[in-house]
């Protein structure tokens, strides 16, 4: 009873309170809501520690079985970070002083590792574009054309290419003046149009769908119909 019913009651009560407060922000609802929001923020912090436990446990068990350099390095860097963090706190009154050892670790370890990890994606996306981006069907061709125009329209080189095309056109059709044509920046204009009209319409359609789904899900959770979070 307490294991399943109590959580459902709490969810119902908190969820409903927030909805009611939205419409009646006065006392006592408003104050209670604010209090709950502060609690929410406090409790959310603790969830971070949950992930840490499984990470440490996993690598400690691995290390206990046999020495493994990777697990060792991971745990070592974790504890080194903690030591430097608390040391910086003690020495500089805050771990976030830019000249503290903790921030040194941030600048010279976290930034390069995280940024480079994501920079790898540039290579993968270039290779994937070359390998998989084929005009196999009508839909795929549309996707390809839209992507190409946006890629040209969003960078300065698009205007250089357009100027080249404009000069070509005005050589063939001397009646069309080059200057007028070159000023048009066609790639940028089409790219802006794609972003603001068809792209915008499709995204709005998709997000209206997901918003409706999200609302339905939230209501199911509040009413206790959706309860996977307590059965897991």
């Amino acid at each position: 009873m307490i294991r399943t019913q109590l959580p459902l009651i709490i969810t119902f009560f908190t969820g409903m309170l927030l909805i009611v407060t939205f419409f009646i922000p006065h006392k006592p609802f408003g104050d209670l809501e604010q209090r709950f929001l502060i609690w929410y923020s406090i409790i959310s912090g603790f969830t971070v520690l949950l992930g840490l436990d499984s990470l440490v446990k996993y690598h400690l068990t691995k290390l206990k079985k046999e020495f493994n350099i990777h697990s060792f390095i991971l745990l070592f860097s974790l504890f080194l970070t903690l030591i430097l963090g608390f040391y910086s706190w003690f020495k500089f009154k805050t771990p976030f002083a830019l000249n503290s050892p903790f921030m040194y670790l941030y600048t010279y370890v976290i930034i390069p590792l995280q940024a480079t990890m994501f920079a790898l994606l540039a290579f993968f996306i270039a290779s994937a574009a070359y390998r998989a981006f084929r005009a196999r069907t009508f839909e795929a061709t549309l996707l390809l054309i839209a992507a190409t125009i946006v890629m040209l329209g969003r960078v300065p080189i698009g205007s250089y290419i357009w100027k080249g095309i404009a000069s070509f056109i005005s050589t063939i059709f001397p009646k069309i003046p080059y200057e007028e044509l070159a000023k048009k920046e066609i790639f940028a204009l089409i790219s802006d149009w794609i972003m603001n009209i068809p792209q915008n319409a499709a995204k709005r359609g998709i997000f209206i769908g997901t918003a409706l789904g999200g609302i339905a899900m939230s209501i199911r959770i509040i009413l206790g119909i959706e309860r996977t979070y307590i059965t897991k």
Partner: protein
Amino acid sequence: MILNIIGTWLAATLTLAIFSFLYKDNPFYKLAEHIYVGVSAGFWVIYVWAFDIKPMLIDRFLTTTGIEKWILLIPAILGVLMLTRWFPKTAWISRIPLSFTIGIGAGLGVTASIQGFLIPQIGATLLPLTTINNILLVIGVISTIIYFYFSKEFKGTWKFFSRLGIIFIMIAFGASFGYTVMARISLLIGRIYFLLHNFLNIIP
């Protein structure tokens, strides 16, 4: 100064270790990857302590008086109860703080989605059909929604609109792809700038 030079060398070594993955998976990459996970996990602990537990719980507990002081014990206990998940036998207790956060999330989500998304977005689609762009925008939104409506068989007009929907969706995905390429390349530019500027000093 010397510490900065050592730091730059360290950062460059780690950058190259990650880039070495492009050739093939190798021990240097693996090592860098594990350092990353370890250091960022450590960071999170300090963050939770510095930005949550200390200012929101401990400092407040020390500075407030009366009933307010003791009410603070409720979120503190709920937070600690979250950690019962660490032990299989007591894991069910964590459902209590979890249900609290889920209730708040769901309650906030309902009103925000309606007030902050559905109403303004639908409102912005109710346009006078006087220009081609307005017509395209309205048709685009409707046909995209129709494309994702699976409760009715795609036949006749319905099929026409769902087909139109896919055209809009493909253009949108293409545009998103173009933007994603742009974003990924920018990240690489950032890293190469670091190597050329901070590490090798080739460019000012």
